[in-house]
């Protein structure tokens, strides 16, 4: 396959790199505590937290690196970081 001229690329391929495999701690949401403020989505460095139809925020574990920023910044302490089981 020929390479893209000048080391260029269109978007899309970054998602081939599934950074979820880096994760040691997994964010677990407590739906009862969550106030739906969306802070976790705003500050996620991966941009991998989305809002579902019911207004709940859901991390995409394929990309979540488990940094814990969402848990640390959640104003309701609704996110707990739990060690991944291998």
């Amino acid at each position, binding site marked *: 396959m020929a390479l*893209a001229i000048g080391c260029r*690329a269109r*978007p899309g391929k970054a998602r081939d790199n599934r950074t979820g495999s880096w994760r040691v701690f997994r964010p677990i949401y407590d739906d009862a505590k969550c106030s739906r403020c969306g802070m976790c989505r705003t500050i996620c460095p*991966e*941009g991998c937290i989305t809002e579902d139809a019911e207004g709940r925020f859901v991390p995409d574990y394929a*990309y979540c*690196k488990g*940094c814990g920023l969402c848990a640390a*910044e959640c104003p309701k302490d609704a996110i707990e*970081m739990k060690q991944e089981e291998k």
Partner: protein
Amino acid sequence: MAEKTCELFEAGHRACGGCGAALAARLVTKAAGTDTIVVSSTGCMEVFSTPYPETAWKVPWIHSLFENAAAVASGIEASLKKQGRSEKVVIMAGDGATFDIGMISISGAFERGHDFTYVCYDNEAYMNTGIQRSGATPYDASTTTSPAGSCSMGNKRPKKDMPQILAAHGAPYVATASIAYPADLLQKIERAIKTKGPCYIQLHAPCCTGWGFEGEQTIAVAKLAIETGLWVNYEMVDGKITKVKKVVRKPVEEYLKTQKRFRHLFKPKRQDAEIALIQAIADKNAEKYGIDIKLKKE
């Protein structure tokens, strides 16, 4: 209308977990929208976002060299003008690329008055090459080229005042911001993009790996920088300060204690004289920018 709901900086990038620069890229592109061309300098952000053929950028993006982002942006802006195109040009460069190696090219571009927004994501050292000091490294921070040692307290100089330098170039809009205050950052980016001429935003973006703290603390550390007065968020319009974030100030050691780069100020023994010097920097900032909220009790 620029699309602002989707992610323009995609997951899959190779930044460390809890990376302040990655969050900066996400927030800046979100505020800038799809009608934007991003110019990056060489550096951590460039490397973690674009290993061929994986690019995290969903807006048109270009990287040429370390020191020339402002000149590349000048050329893009001139070309767009000539073609009658509407895209906005946003530079995303680190503090080394901005304070040090890119200084001439930035000065030239600001003096010529090109219409672009220059965002310096400031993590206060050369992180990509392994945490060497830059002109943005704060006083006493230990880096790999300003290490603390038996006869050194780390970096000997305070941060260069880049916003003031660019305001002196006649930049119509200059602001400082922090990833700890996303709403404020988004507003400032939008304002800079709307303002004609060369605008500068210096964005505090802590680096967990380089500063030595856990990734979950990135925002907490950035907040402490503001709350201690070691980082001041303000806006300058036509060289005059128009808005400052006020705080009830905390002692600087609350910020310093969170990071390994300042560990030598506390271990093996507490360096009271040095901490007092850093407190004096914060006090001077407080006086200069008027950041202190006076509590009624006092």
